[in-house]
């Protein structure tokens, strides 16, 4: 029994057969089918289970608005949940599974939920699972999450790539139906740069679904001819399989192109999808309209669908959902479906029309009345009709088309907070006047529901968008009839009549929500979940609004709509992320010594985007502490080398360079001699410390400023702000040179001996004292910079060369230092040595501390104006009781001193009210043989030698500690100046 419901004609390629499986069963279809049309062709109406009640469901639509037929597409790592069968293009080997079921689709064990529907009404989860509170997280929520829900994830990495692209155009046309095609022809012929995007794989929109003619050819043939002409125009770019998902500011649109979703696997080198950012000067929205269903009892059985969908399946895909079809309509469009299906040999059980003046037919029965109930457990078998004369009729049918009128697709007109307006003629919302800038709406999206109206509207919109003069050209002859709709939303007295099939929201739920006091449409949405999830209520919202309006005694426009937001259709996170995932999530910056460090087996750590060597393990070392202790001791005893390139470097030049630094640093720089370096502290304007570093004066008008690694960017931004916005006439220029210079710290008593072998100049203590800086040469002529500065507290230098020589310099230092057993050290040893010296770093400059807190209060010059100087004098930041940076060591040398622990008075209670301070940085000091820390303590300067309690309830630490100077090693700084 293959493709029992396949009809003649259609736009499928019967020469190309595609094999596919659904829930493990093999079927065949044709190229040009969707998964939904191929399943219907094979007599499969049951495609899913509903969200809450697990009711059997089939397709409702033939497009991207589909609420029901959601499947898991593909297998293994490529498995994708919640894919709409109505838009999934069929290909040979397609593999799909139904979802949201326990057991098989036909015998879903969770269908029991339907029996308990009285307990699962709107807001049931607010009412039912109130107590005990602990049960919610542990019991209720996992059960509900398991039972209610959609598809499942593969939990494997997606093997495919997703790209991002950027395109510019004069005119973006969204939708390639009759209006969009006519707009593209008009603009394309005028030479405009046009992008024409459509979510479908076949261009033509509804023209492919209809039997109407344009001029002397079928609508589909006219669309094909228009495409041929557009393809010949070099200024027109046609983008099928491309959904415009959002209208953003200033003519920027987001679009997702499904490059490979219609293939078994993407072609080599091709992405699965592309996220396009489209920059359009003008936009024509020609997104068409979506038919709406009618609510009646049990209107959700497989086989019941939109009448226009039945027509699409018959005319485009040559498929009928069943051999016997009934129609329930409130307008003339429903009759068109009956006529088309009848012409294709499908039996029309009857057309049920609510209007007394419905058109008659010679071919089938037309009843005035309403469908009041249906039967059929896994698919429709009978429809019960109550005729206007009161008689009941039972219609035998396996498919029922609902036609409740059409909703223009106003979605994109509202992305910039536009609000649609009510059009009583078609009983629907149409775009308002507050469109996104540069947008014109045409065709059915604008409420122009006839084909002639769409063609006219498309041409007129193109002329309007481009400012073209002259009359519209003569349009080809085509259908131009009104649909003569009588508004009809639901059958009186129905209760389990579905408005939102995706979220299982019925007429009863909307009434209940009204009873319980939810008056705003936004509240209705949240309480009942009407219009949520993947379809965002494209087929359901209007029904809910209409009922709400009736209950509240208001009109539909008074009730209004919920806000439409991007994306227009569900969008995979993968395509939003593009290639920025895994290792490519953010850029990786490598230091100049990276390759060398890799050769040494360094362990790396991410610092911002940088990868820095954290430590260099040697053979036999089993813990990181062993390596770090060795690196620290080797540096303090002989010489160590560390890549400090990542510190930010800003070149400051100009006759006002010193005056400029006086503004950005709280301490003075005007009197700094050429050839000298000074530590500088930058404050924010509110008086809090921002960053610290050094400024080296290489010439009267030339400084090199360093920043911390993490703040390189914000500090540079701040310096440019001060330069451009506050002191625009200062003669000073800034440029970041962080990546231009490779810079290494060479530290330890043998550092001078080592560097003397490399540096061409005399660097004796007399010639190059502590805090000296100079342009030098090394290795017989290579230009370099030397700074005698020290973060470790040892005799130390930082030496910089142009980055291209960074690798060579590191190897040179290691060679020249071999006789001193020079030891490379990483960020951990760097950290240990700076804590031993009590130097503040990021943990101390943490956005809450002042110069005073850092023990540098006297550095803030009162003789000059600098950023932050005025507000640093605020009362609240000064006076008694301020935090002060101190050193902390355990009374028992074996005790830990964890970072984050808080200080309490020795005899005081341990609680937040009596908090005295906290530990910011801690480490094991291999030089002292015990843990040490620095931190902040109230009035810390006056509490040296005090014993306190250090507590960390989180890590269950409670030890006695002694407050000391933060300078644990060489407090007089003799080593630095040696």
């Amino acid at each position, binding site marked *: 029994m293959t493709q029992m419901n396949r009809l003649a004609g259609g736009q499928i390629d019967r020469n190309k057969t595609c094999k596919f499986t659904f829930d493990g069963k093999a079927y065949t279809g044709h190229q040009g089918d969707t998964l939904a049309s191929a399943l219907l062709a094979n007599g499969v109406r049951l495609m899913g289970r509903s969200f809450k009640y697990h009711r059997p469901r089939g397709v409702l639509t033939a497009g991207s608005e589909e609420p029901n037929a959601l499947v898991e597409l593909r297998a293994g790592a490529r498995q994708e949940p919640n894919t709409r069968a109505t838009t999934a293009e069929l290909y040979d080997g397609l593999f799909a599974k139904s979802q949201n079921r326990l057991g098989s689709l036909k015998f879903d064990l969770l269908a029991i939920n339907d029996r308990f529907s009285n307990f699962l009404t709107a807001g049931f989860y607010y009412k039912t699972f109130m107590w005990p509170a602990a049960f919610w997280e542990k019991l209720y929520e996992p059960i509900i999450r398991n039972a209610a829900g959609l598809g499942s994830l593969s939990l494997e990495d997606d093997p495919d790539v997703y790209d991002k692209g950027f395109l510019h155009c004069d005119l973006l046309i969204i939708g390639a139906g009759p209006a969009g095609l006519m707009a593209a022809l008009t603009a394309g012929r005028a030479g405009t740069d046009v992008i024409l995007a459509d979510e479908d794989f076949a261009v033509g929109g509804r023209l492919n679904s209809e039997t109407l003619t344009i001029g002397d050819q079928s609508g589909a043939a006219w669309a094909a001819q228009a495409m041929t002409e557009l393809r010949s125009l070099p200024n027109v770019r046609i983008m099928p399989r491309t959904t415009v998902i959002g209208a953003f500011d*200033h003519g920027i649109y987001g679009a997702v192109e499904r490059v490979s979703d219609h293939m078994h696997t993407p072609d080599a080198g091709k992405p699965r999808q592309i996220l396009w950012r489209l920059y359009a000067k003008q936009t024509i929205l020609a997104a068409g309209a979506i038919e709406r269903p009618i609510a009646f009892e049990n209107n959700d059985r497989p086989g019941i669908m939109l009448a226009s969908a039945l027509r699409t399946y018959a005319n485009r895909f040559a498929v009928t959902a069943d051999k016997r079809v009934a129609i329930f309509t409130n307008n003339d469009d429903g009759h068109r479906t009956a006529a088309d299906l009848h012409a294709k040999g499908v039996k029309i059980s009857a057309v049920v029309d609510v209007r007394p003046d419905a058109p008659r037919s010679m071919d089938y029965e037309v009843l005035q009345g309403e469908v009041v109930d249906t039967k059929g457990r896994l698919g429709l078998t009978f429809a019960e009709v109550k005729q206007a004369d009161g008689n009941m009729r039972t219609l035998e049918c396996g498919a029922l088309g609902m036609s409740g009128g059409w909703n223009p697709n106003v979605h994109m007109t509202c992305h910039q907070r536009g609000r649609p307006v009510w059009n009583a003629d078609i009983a629907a919302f149409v775009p308002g006047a507050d469109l996104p800038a540069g947008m014109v709406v045409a065709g059915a999206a604008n409420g122009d529901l006839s084909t002639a109206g769409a063609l006219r509207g498309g041409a007129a919109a193109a002329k309007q968008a481009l400012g073209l003069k002259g009359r519209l050209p003569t349009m080809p002859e085509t259908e131009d009839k009104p649909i003569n709709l009588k508004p009809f939303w639901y059958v009186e007295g129905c209760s389990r009549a579905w408005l939102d099939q995706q979220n299982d929201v019925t007429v009863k739920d909307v009434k209940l929500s009204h009873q319980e006091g939810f008056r705003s449409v936004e509240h209705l949405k949240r309480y009942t979940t009407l219009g949520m999830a993947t379809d965002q209520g494209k087929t359901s919202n209007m029904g809910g609004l209409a009922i709400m309006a009736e209950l509240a005694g208001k009109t539909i426009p008074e009730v209004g709509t919920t806000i439409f937001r991007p994306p227009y259709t569900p969008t995979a996170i993968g395509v939003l992320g593009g290639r920025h995932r895994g290792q490519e999530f953010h850029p990786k910056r490598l230091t100049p010594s990276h390759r060398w460090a890799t050769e040494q087996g360094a362990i790396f750590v991410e610092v911002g985007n940088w990868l820095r060597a954290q430590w260099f393990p040697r053979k036999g070392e089993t813990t990181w502490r062993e390596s770090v202790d060795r690196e620290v001791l080797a540096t303090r005893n002989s010489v160590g080398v560390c890549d400090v390139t990542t510190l930010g470097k800003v070149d400051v030049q100009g006759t006002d360079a010193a*005056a400029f630094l006086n503004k950005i640093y709280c301490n003075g720089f005007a009197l700094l001699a050429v050839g000298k370096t000074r530590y500088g502290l930058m404050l924010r*304007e509110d008086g809090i410390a921002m960053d610290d570093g050094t400024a080296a004066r290489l010439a009267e008008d030339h400084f090199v400023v360093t920043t911390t690694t993490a703040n390189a960017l914000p500090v540079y931004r701040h310096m*440019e*702000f001060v330069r451009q*916005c*506050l002191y*625009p006439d200062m003669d000073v220029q800034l440029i970041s040179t962080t990546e231009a210079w490779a810079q290494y710290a060479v530290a330890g008593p043998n550092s001078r001996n080592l560097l003397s072998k490399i540096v061409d100049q005399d660097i004796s203590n007399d010639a190059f004292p502590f805090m000296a800086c100079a342009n030098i040469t090394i290795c017989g002529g290579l230009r370099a910079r030397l700074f005698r500065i020290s973060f470790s507290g040892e005799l130390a230098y930082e030496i910089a060369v142009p980055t291209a020589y960074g690798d060579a310099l590191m190897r040179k230092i290691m060679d020249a230092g071999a006789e001193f057993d020079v030891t490379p050290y990483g960020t951990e040893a760097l950290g240990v040595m700076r804590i031993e010296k009590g130097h503040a770093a990021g943990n101390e400059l943490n956005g809450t501390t002042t110069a005073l807190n850092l023990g540098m209060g006297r550095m803030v010059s009162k003789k000059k104006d600098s950023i932050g100087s005025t507000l640093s004098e605020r009362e609240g930041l000064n006076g008694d009781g301020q935090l002060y940076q101190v050193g902390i060591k355990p009374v028992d040398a074996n005790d830990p001193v964890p970072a984050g622990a808080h200080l309490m008075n020795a005899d005081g209670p341990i609680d937040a009210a009596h908090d005295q301070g906290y530990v910011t940085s801690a480490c094991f000091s291999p030089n002292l043989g015990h843990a040490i820390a620095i931190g902040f303590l109230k009035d810390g300067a006056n509490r040296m030698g005090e014993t306190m309690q250090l507590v960390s309830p989180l890590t269950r630490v409670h030890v006695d500690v002694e407050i000391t100077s933060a300078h644990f090693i060489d407090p007089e700084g003799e080593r630095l100046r040696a």
Partner: protein
Amino acid sequence: MIIDHPLLGPRDAAEFTYMGDAKLIDRPDWQSDTAAQDFYEYGYLRDNPAGWHEELWFHEAGDRSWLVVTRNTVTHEISKVELARDVARAKGRSK
């Protein structure tokens, strides 16, 4: 959004960093008698209008110009883009 840079033409807003109210250009005089109050107001009291707003944007992924962008915070419409340096000079800032 697209910001029409006075030197470089239209650029995507993603290239910029936002800082907020352009009143930050009006840094008070530190020697004024009311300096403490002036700096407090400068640092903490900002308008947050629903409508036209002059704000500072930094072309961080571009030419590193600070710009004063006059933008409607409700519609995101941009009516004017100037170099902050020119604005600062016009307000009398110098060295």
